[in-house]
C-alpha cells in the first residue's frame, strides 16, 4: 500500500516540478533578456524527468534488492540446519516468515524460529520502508533543485528531453525482446530436462502418443510427436482449403470490384470476425458446424463425427478468412494502378486483368499472407480443444477425431502438476517444437513480403 502512495506522491511532485521548470525558464529568459533555446514546456519536462527518474530508478532497484535483504534477515541467527537450506525449501521458509511478519499468519502452527524471525523481519521492514520513502523523496527533491538551477537560456532542454524519450523507447523494446528470449529460454531448459527422460528420436519420430501409461517408467515410445503433428497438419490443411479461396475472393472483390462505399463498410465488418474470441468459434463448432457436417455427411452415407478434424478445420478456416482477406486486399491494392491500366488498355477484361496481371504480381505477397495464416492455424488451440475430438491416433481420415500439438500441451499442462515428470515436461518440448515451426514460417513469410514490397518501391 505504501508503495502506491509513494508512487502517487512522486507523480504529483513531478507535476509540480514541471510547473516550476516552465515558470523558472520564463523568468530566466526575462531576467537575461535572451531568447530561450527551447520552449518553456521543454524545460518543465526536463525538470520533471530529473525529479522522477532518480527516484523511480531507486524504487525499481530496491524492489530487486529487497528479497536479498529479506533472505539475509531471515537466515541471520538461524540454527545451522536452517542456515543450510537453499532452493525451494528456503523460498518456502521465507514465504512463511513473510506471511507471519505481515500479520496474515500461516495455516499450521509456526515454529519458534519462524516466529522469532518474523519479529526481526517486521522490524526490519518497518525501518526499511521509512528509509525508502526518505531516500526517494531526497532523490526527487534533489533532482528537481539540481535541474532548476541548471536552467539558462542556452540550455538545450528540448534535445535533453528528446534523449530521455529515446532511452525510454529503447528500454520498452528491450523489455519486449527480453520477454521473448525469456520465454524461449524457459522452454529450452524444461525441454532439455524432458530429453533426459525420453530419447529425442523417440519423441520426434515416435508413432504413438500415450503419455499416461508410461508413468511407471520405461515405455518412452509413448511420447511420439508424429500423431499430433499429423493432426495439426490435417486441421491446418482443411482450414487453409476453406480460408484461402474464400479470403482471396473477398480480397479480389474488395480491391477490384467493390464500390468505395461498399469497401469502407465491408472491410471493417469482415475484420470484426477476427476479433471474435476463439472460444466462441469453439462452441460455434460444437453446437452448429459439427452437427451440421455430421447430418450433411449422413445424406451421402458418410460417417462424419461431430467433433472431428473436419469440424475443427472448417471453423478454424472461418476464423482465418479475415486474416487472409485483409492482408491480400492490402497487397492487391499495392499493385500499381499502372499495371491495371496497361492490361485494360490492351483490351483485356477485368477478370483477365486480375488473373493474368494483378494476381501474378501480387503472388509473393499473397504467399506471405498465406504462410502467416498457416502459422496462426498451427498455433490455434481453443477451437481444436473443443471441436477436434482429442484422439491422438495416427490416421488419415478427416471425418474422425484427431489431436493436435496444442491440444496435447493443454492436456499435459493442466491440473495437478509436478514439473519433474516427463508427462508434464513434454508440454515444453511440444511448445518449443511449435515455436520453431511457426518462427520458421514467419521468417520465411516476412522475407517474402518484404521482397515483394521492394519490387514496387
Amino acid at each position, binding site marked *: 500500500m505504501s508503495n502506491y502512495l509513494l508512487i502517487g506522491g512522486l507523480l504529483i511532485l513531478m507535476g509540480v516540478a514541471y510547473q516550476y521548470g516552465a515558470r523558472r525558464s520564463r523568468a530566466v529568459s526575462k531576467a537575461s533578456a535572451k531568447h530561450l533555446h527551447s520552449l518553456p514546456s521543454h524545460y518543465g519536462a526536463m525538470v520533471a524527468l530529473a525529479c522522477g527518474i532518480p527516484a523511480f530508478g531507486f524504487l525499481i532497484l530496491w524492489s530487486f534488492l529487497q528479497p536479498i535483504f529479506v533472505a539475509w534477515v531471515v537466515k541471520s541467527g538461524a540454527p545451522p540446519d536452517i542456515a543450510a537450506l537453499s532452493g525451494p525449501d528456503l523460498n518456502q521458509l521465507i514465504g512463511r516468515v513473510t506471511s507471519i511478519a505481515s500479520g496474515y499468519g500461516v495455516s499450521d502452527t509456526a515454529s519458534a524460529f519462524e516466529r522469532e524471525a518474523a519479529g526481526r523481519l517486521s522490524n526490519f521492514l518497518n525501518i526499511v520502508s521509512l528509509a525508502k520513502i526518505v531516500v526517494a523523496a531526497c532523490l526527487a527533491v534533489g533532482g528537481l533543485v539540481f535541474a532548476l538551477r541548471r536552467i539558462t537560456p542556452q540550455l538545450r532542454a528540448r534535445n535533453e528531453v528528446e534523449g530521455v524519450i529515446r532511452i525510454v523507447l529503447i528500454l520498452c523494446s528491450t523489455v519486449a525482446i527480453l520477454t521473448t528470449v525469456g520465454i524461449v529460454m524457459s522452454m529450452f531448459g524444461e525441454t532439455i530436462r524432458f530429453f533426459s527422460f525420453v530419447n529425442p528420436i523417440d519423441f520426434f519420430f515416435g508413432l504413438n502418443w500415450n503419455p499416461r501409461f508410461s508413468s511407471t517408467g520405461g515405455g518412452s515410445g509413448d511420447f511420439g510427436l508424429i500423431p499430433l503433428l499429423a493432426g495439426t497438419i490435417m486441421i491446418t490443411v482443411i482450414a487453409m482449403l476453406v480460408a484461402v479461396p474464400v479470403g482471396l475472393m473477398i480480397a479480389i472483390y474488395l480491391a477490384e470490384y467493390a*464500390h*468505395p462505399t461498399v469497401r469502407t463498410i465491408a472491410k471493417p465488418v469482415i475484420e470484426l470476425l477476427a476479433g471474435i474470441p476463439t472460444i466462441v468459434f469453439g462452441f460455434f463448432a460444437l453446437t452448429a458446424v459439427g452437427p451440421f457436417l455430421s447430418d450433411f455427411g449422413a445424406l451421402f452415407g458418410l460417417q462424419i463425427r461431430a467433433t472431428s478434424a473436419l469440424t475443427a478445420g472448417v471453423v478454424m478456416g472461418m476464423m482465418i478468412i479475415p486474416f487472409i482477406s485483409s492482408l491480400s486486399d492490402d497487397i492487391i491494392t499495392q499493385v*500499381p494502378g*499502372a*499495371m*491495371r*491500366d*496497361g*492490361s*485494360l*488498355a*490492351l*483490351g*483485356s*477484361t477485368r477478370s*483477365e486483368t486480375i488473373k*493474368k*496481371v494483378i494476381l*501474378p*504480381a501480387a503472388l509473393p505477397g499473397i504467399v506471405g499472407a498465406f504462410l502467416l495464416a498457416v502459422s496462426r492455424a498451427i498455433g490455434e488451440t481453443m477451437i481444436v480443444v473443443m471441436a477436434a475430438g482429442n484422439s491422438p491416433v495416427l490416421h488419415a481420415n478427416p471425418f474422425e477425431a484427431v489431436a493436435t500439438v496444442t491440444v496435447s500441451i493443454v492436456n499435459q499442462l493442466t491440473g495437478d502438476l509436478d514439473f519433474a515428470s516427463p508427462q508434464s515436461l513434454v508440454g515444453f518440448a511440444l511448445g518449443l517444437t511449435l515455436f520453431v515451426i511457426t518462427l520458421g514460417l514467419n521468417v520465411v513469410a516476412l522475407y517474402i513480403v518484404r521482397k515483394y514490397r521492394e*519490387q514496387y518501391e
Partner: protein
Amino acid sequence: MSVQTKPKVVAKDVNVYYGDKHALKNVSVNIPERAVTAFIGPSGCGKSTFLRCFNRMNDTVDGARVVGSIQIDDQDIYDPDLDPVQLRARVGMVFQKPNPFPKSIFENVAYGPRIHGLAHAKPDMEEIVVSSLRKAGLFEEVKDRLHESGTGLSGGQQQRLCIARAIAVSPEVILMDEPCSALDPIATARIEELIAELRENFTIVIVTHSMQQAARVSQRTAFFHLGILVEEGTTDDIFTNPQEKRTQDYITGRFG
C-alpha cells in the same frame, strides 16, 4: 504538309465530367490517318482526359462521364452496342510512366495477342513477338534475353517494350500520353525516331508537355487550355503562325 484524306477519328462536342468537375468542354477535332497529332497545353488542361476518350479508358475511372460523339472510321465508339474491350484492341495506348508487367520480355509482348487469340500455334506467337519488338526498335537489344523480366530493362527500353506490347495486337490507332516524360534525352530521341517510323502504319496521337517534341514529331497540333480546345491546325501553322493570342503566349513560353 497538308493532309487531305478522310480523317481516321472524328470527335464532336466532347465533354468530360469528373463528378461535378467539368474537365473538358465541347471539344471537336479531326485526327488524320497515318499521321502524328500532338496535344499540347499546360498541365491540368485536359489533354490526358481527352486522349483517354479515344479508347474509353475514362470508363474505368470512378465518377467520370463522357458526353458527345467520337467516331473511328465512321463508327461511334460510344455506341452502347460497342464493346469497349474490343475497342481497346484497335486503339492501343502507351502511358506516361513505362509500365511493363512483371513478366518476361516475351510474355509482355505476347500478352495482348494471347488474350485476343491472335496466334494459333507457338511459331505464330514467336513471329508476332519478334516482329513487334523489331518494329519497336528493341529486338536487337533484347534478343538474347527474351525470357528475362521486362522490369529489368532501362526506362527507355521499358517504354519501347510497352510500345511493342501495344503494336503486337495490330491496333489502328496508338495513343501516347507523355511517353518520354520519364526518360532521359537519349532515350527520348530513340522514341521520337520510332514514332516517325510508326507513322507509316499507324495513326498516332501523342500528348506532350514539350513543344519542341510536338514540333519535331507531329504533323498536326492541338492546343488545349483549361479544358477548351483553343486552336488546332498543322504543326507548322500552330508554331509559326498561331491565330490565337493564348496559343502564341504558350508557345513562346509566356505561361505554362
